[in-house]
């Protein structure tokens, strides 16, 4: 069943009197239980697609459906992990998480319990009282994950969640997220992630949706059914890599 559906989504805006079309009639279906990765070059409107899908930005044309119903505004069953963590610097790790719980109307005692549970889950126990400035990039993004997961969403959006991290930290966090996702410990039913990192897309996804450069259209989709954890050196992995690159480069070159 489709949890989320984007139908003929177009987004355009006007900058300095010029009309920019960012997204051009994008269709996207996210089924329950699926981890969908959207890839495309920078400026391909990937982040905009995610914001529209989460109901944070309204499309110029087209419609978003959640569980078959039109989405009128921000989706209360969704949360987002951002590339730049978006933590509030004057709040501690725990307070950063409690804040989003408070915003969702959760009472104080339960807020503390839930915040601690998710801090624990992402491996930040004993850093509850730390401020963001005391944390490394990887730890900050762990807080980002804890905060997004703590509201126990049905659908999780991730906008380049590992792009601000060094290669090793990114690999570590990626693996941990996949473990959590496949463990069934999370409330999440589907994940939509955006990345420009092609290897990451194949490592993580059940299905890859490829966007062209702006104004972006869907130029193709690739199912990835390799068992996890995936080996980037395997023949099957290389063959998907080959296919994915060819899709992206062909769509770019023919423009």
């Amino acid at each position, binding site marked *: 069943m489709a949890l989320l559906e984007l139908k003929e989504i177009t987004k355009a805006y006007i*900058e300095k009197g010029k009309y920019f079309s960012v997204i051009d009639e994008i269709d996207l279906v996210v089924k329950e239980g699926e981890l969908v990765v959207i890839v495309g070059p920078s400026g391909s409107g990937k982040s905009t697609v995610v914001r529209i899908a989460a109901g944070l930005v309204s499309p110029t044309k087209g419609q978003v459906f959640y569980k078959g119903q039109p989405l009128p505004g921000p989706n209360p069953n969704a949360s987002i992990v951002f590339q730049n963590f978006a933590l509030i610097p004057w709040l501690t790790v725990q307070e950063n998480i409690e804040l989003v719980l408070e915003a969702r109307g959760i009472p104080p005692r339960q807020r503390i319990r839930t915040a601690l549970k998710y801090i624990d889950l992402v491996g930040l126990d004993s850093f509850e009282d730390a401020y963001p400035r005391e944390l490394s990039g990887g730890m900050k993004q762990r807080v980002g994950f804890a905060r997004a997961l703590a509201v126990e969403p049905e659908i999780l959006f991730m906008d380049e969640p590992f792009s601000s991290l060094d290669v090793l930290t990114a690999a570590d966090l990626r693996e941990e997220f996949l473990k959590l996702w496949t463990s069934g410990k999370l409330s999440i039913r589907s994940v939509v992630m955006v990345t420009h990192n*092609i290897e990451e897309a194949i490592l993580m996804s059940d299905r890859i949706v490829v966007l062209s450069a702006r104004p972006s259209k869907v130029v193709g989709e690739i199912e990835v059914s390799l068992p996890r954890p995936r080996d980037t050196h395997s023949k099957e992995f290389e063959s998907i890599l080959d296919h994915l*690159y060819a899709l992206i*480069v062909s769509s770019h070159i023919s423009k």
Partner: protein
Amino acid sequence: MDDESGPYPRAGVSEVIGFLEILDDESGKIDVYKLGKNIDHQLEQLLSVLETARIFGFVEYEAGDVFFTPKGKHFIQSSQEERKKIIATTLPEIPVFRELLSFLTHNEEHAVSTEYLDQLITRDLTAEEIQKIKNAVLHWGRFAELIWVDSDEQEIHLEEKEEEET
């Protein structure tokens, strides 16, 4: 007729030459995904470099493979001086350079503000994209010794080797 001044080079000199060197090491033909691996899957860089090398007529792309054109092969086997000459004859074939060079030649001062380039780049691009193209245009123009740039005044000047301005 197409009134756009594209396609635009977006990649700089070192990036493109580095890419051509990799291609040369691979005997002139490479799977595009292997190229991607070679540069740590920097998709943005890969696309801009491929596009630029293609605009210059150095490579072709077909069905997942990138390969040299005879011109590209010749370029990478040339000395630095010869490479500059090849670029100097290639740039005037590219619309955005042709217009810039034509303006500089016909203008009495043989100079123009770098902002002039914004007018030449007509497609609906973001400020960031335009800046990238401007940087590439100036970079290649200087490499070919067709122009020089006064960074303080933000002015582009025609390079005049023979005659000194009086």
